[in-house]
């Protein structure tokens, strides 16, 4: 059962792909052993996907936390190269993603445009990794004899509720988070999960350290509350136009005062700016005396 079914003709039986989740740099199934189906727009089932549980969320947070300090400690140059590498890998797999998007109902022209936009978006944020700090940090002219500066630091582990937009939205939510040194747990709960599960493979072949991006598929009502309430998640990026979704997640997030950014966009074409990075950064001010 796969997106390749339509191409399965002639006399050879195609090898179908099992769509698994991406956690800690590996491709496990849900610990729950459950599955859901992904459907074509006409209702035909096209794949089985993992229906992840709150325990999968927990495992993914553990992986994201384990990876966070190391990822943040990479040089900005290195993170930029790795984001660039993701773009390279995605570009190379354009045909596969176009087919996945087409299977989800996009015309071939729309599918090609979305893949190209996603590649370009990765490129855009690859370039920001070693620039946003220069644009947004400051040396503060305090009125005492101190060297005083404010820099941006990643918030840490960011829980992402991925948008419905299956590839461009997904990439637009993940890229700025990791460009700034955060690690992510991404919940894919929309109607088209296959680009996301396949994007995990792209990440895995792009020198992204395991655990920097963790992608879970399943149902929002099972996964979002445990993620939003998890004490070891520092921030949430909620990509949903539904205010009730944001509200309920925000209430869970109060527990440890997670930072919450809400992205209600349905069209992700123009959702690209350094503020997508800085919204997931903390400001740290450091003082040191100037003297002998």
């Amino acid at each position, binding site marked *: 059962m796969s997106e390749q079914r339509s191409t399965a003709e002639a006399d050879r039986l195609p090898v179908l792909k099992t769509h698994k989740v991406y956690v800690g740099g590996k491709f496990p199934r849900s610990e729950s052993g459950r599955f859901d189906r992904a459907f074509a727009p006409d209702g035909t089932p096209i794949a089985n996907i993992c229906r992840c549980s709150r325990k999968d969320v927990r495992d993914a947070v553990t992986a994201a936390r384990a990876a966070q300090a190391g990822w943040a400690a990479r040089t900005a140059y290195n993170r930029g190269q790795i984001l660039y590498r993701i773009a390279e890998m995605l570009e190379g797999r354009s045909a596969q993603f176009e087919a996945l998007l087409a299977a989800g109902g996009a015309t071939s022209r729309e599918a090609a445009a979305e893949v190209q936009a996603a590649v370009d978006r990765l490129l855009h944020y690859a370039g920001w990794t070693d620039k946003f700090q220069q644009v947004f940090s400051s040396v503060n002219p*305090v009125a005492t004899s101190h060297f005083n500066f*404010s820099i941006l630091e990643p918030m840490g582990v960011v829980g992402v509720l991925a948008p419905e937009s299956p590839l461009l939205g997904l990439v637009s939510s993940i890229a700025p988070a990791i460009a700034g040194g955060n690690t992510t747990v991404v919940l894919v709960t929309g109607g088209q999960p296959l680009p996301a599960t396949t994007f995990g493979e792209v990440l895995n072949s792009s020198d992204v350290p395991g655990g920097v991006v963790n992608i879970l598929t399943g149902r929002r009502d099972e996964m979002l509350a445990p993620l939003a309430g998890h004490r070891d998640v520092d921030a949430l990026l909620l990509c949903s136009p539904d205010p009730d979704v944001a509200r309920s997640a925000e*209430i869970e997030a*109060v527990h*440890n005062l997670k930072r919450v950014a809400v992205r209600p966009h349905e069209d992700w074409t123009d959702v690209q*700016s350094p503020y997508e990075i800085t919204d997931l950064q*903390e400001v740290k*001010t*450091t*003082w040191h005396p100037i003297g002998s």
Partner: protein
Amino acid sequence: MTDSTPATGHGAPKLRLGLRNDNDDGWGYAPAPESTDHVELRDRYGLFIDGEFTDAKGGRTFETANPATEEKIADVALASDADVDAAVAAARRAYDEVWSQLAPRERGKYVYRIARVLQERGRELAITESLDGGKPIRESRDVDIPLAAAHFFYYAGWADKLDYAFPGRGARSLGVAGQVIPWNFPLLMAAWKIAPAIAAGNTVVLKPAETTPLTALKLAEIIQDAGVPPGVVNIVTGAGETGAAVVQHEDVDKVAFTGSTEVGKLIRRALAGSGKHYTLELGGKAANLVFEDAAVDQAVEGIVNGIFFNQGHVCCAGSRLLVQESVADEVISKLKDRMETLIVGDPLDKNTDIGAINSRAQLDRIEEYLKIGEEEGAEPFQTSCPVPDRGYWCRPTLFLHAAQSHRVVQEEIFGPVLAVQTFRTVDEGIAMANNTPYGLSGGVWSDKGAKAFRVTSRIRAGVLWANTYNKFDPTAPFGGYKESGIGREGGLAGLHAYLQPEEAA
């Protein structure tokens, strides 16, 4: 613990003749009280709404008292929901009709005026602050009031430069800000809230703390005198209910709160899903790390300033001392000696180091923690200085050999109480510093620059002081990681808290 607890393990505290405020030996400081002659305090203060002082609807009032004498200073209007409604309506009207229409340069001029009059009336404000809140006059005179004026002066200049706030984007004000501030830095917190808000083009409704409303009301007089259009700044006094009415008001676009993490979470919950802007400055339990290569005498001064500044009523206080084991004995011995020289007493005396605890309720809370610390097994040390008979006082206190699990290590006490722990390696010190749900601030003492910056970069907190502590400036962003809050005040980051970037075209 008893008042006369000697320094355990180090023998009796050493006398430092000429430094202690112990008049019995004939070498103490003579009293040096600040004169209060020219300070005019009214018996009764109203709410400041729409440019006028007015009684609360229904005429309810509460008393504000001097914590050093327990004597009432004035009756202050207690704002109800209806008063808050009136204040928010005035702020909305002023925003729509006046303040958002005003040329940015002119808006800035009003804010500059406020800064100037604050400077002119600095002495009066400093005395009022010390009378109403109990902080030493030296601190209100040299820190609170000058910094409050500096905040207005700094943000005034931003008013016509908002196009530079967000690179690549325009900036828009938010509307009406509802602001609630604490009692530890009453005028300074009012300045932190009001200055960036109105400079950025917003209007405000501010609620000062119940125990320290007077300087905010004097600020209202100054704002009135400065000719700021009615309704741009509204000040409603009262207790928690009034504050709740301000931050939960439907017509408030932005909420700014400084106070406890507990209340901050309630506010955050109430704002969930509203899409409103908010900044929260909450509690802290900062680690002050002293490494073996620190300049010990400077570090001791920094420890004292970190925890005993403003009676320890400081959210970013260095309330956990982490000392590297190899220098722990020396540091603690010198710290005890230094603490013995601290003078607790009349906030208006210029020799006073530690003034009055802000209220009976806060003293009760601190004393509860003194019991808890001892019961849990930490070793208490308190200085032997005399304290006045009346008023609320707490001698500077250490809890030595505190364990990570002790509540005096985990919880914010908000008093002159320092929990002391030791560590062996740099990594252990960092891990201990980060072992808290708070993340407001931290201190590092080391003469090795590379080490100091390594440690400051690894402490998860919003403000790091290396070889200094408790320094503040209007240009320097301040605010917490983790459960110490969300957002920043001060600097450009503090301006962002009152603006939104214009959507990309």
